[in-house]
């Protein structure tokens, strides 16, 4: 899993099967210090996260489908799996 910050949201009407009623957010990977690192990408939200939240993002299809309780036919790689309250280092 990686740490990321939610920077935006995406609204789509025409979507692939299984994406109906799924919330898609734009996430920017960050370092533990909060600095952005690398390129942003899109992930499905499962924890009712919002813009500005620091979150845990899982980028692996099998695990993502397990969390979303979707069958093998569902195309997905990235899901938001948790909202980070705080990080201690």
């Amino acid at each position, binding site marked *: 899993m990686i740490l990321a*910050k939610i*920077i*935006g*949201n*995406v*609204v*789509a*009407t*025409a*979507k*692939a*099967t299984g*994406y109906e009623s799924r919330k*898609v957010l*734009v996430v*920017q990977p960050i370092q533990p210090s909060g600095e*952005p690192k690398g*390129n*942003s*990408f*899109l*992930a499905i939200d499962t924890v009712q996260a919002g*813009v*500005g939240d620091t979150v845990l993002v899982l980028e692996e*299809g099998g695990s993502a489908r397990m969390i979303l309780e979707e069958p*093998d*036919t*569902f*195309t*997905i*790689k*990235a899901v938001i799996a948790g909202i980070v309250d705080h990080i201690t280092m």
Partner: protein
Amino acid sequence: MKLGRVTGRVVSTKKVESFEGIKLMLVQPLNDKLENAGDPLVAFDTIQAGVGDLIYYETSKEAGRVLVTTMNPCDAAIVGIVDNLSIEETK
């Protein structure tokens, strides 16, 4: 998933059996500021995207799962057509 813009159609008559009947689109990857980010790629389209559409797509072996036969030699597929994108500047 990543953002992209459909920039063209790719027509192929002679192709791998599992690609038959599948629409292929040319996609330009974009970043969250909608600037070009990397080289164009060819992606499966099962949701009737058109040229000029802002879309999001999935890459790697996960992409092949948009087809009925889930195990496919496919590495990019369009999974959503974007109606609205809002980005909050936090950097």
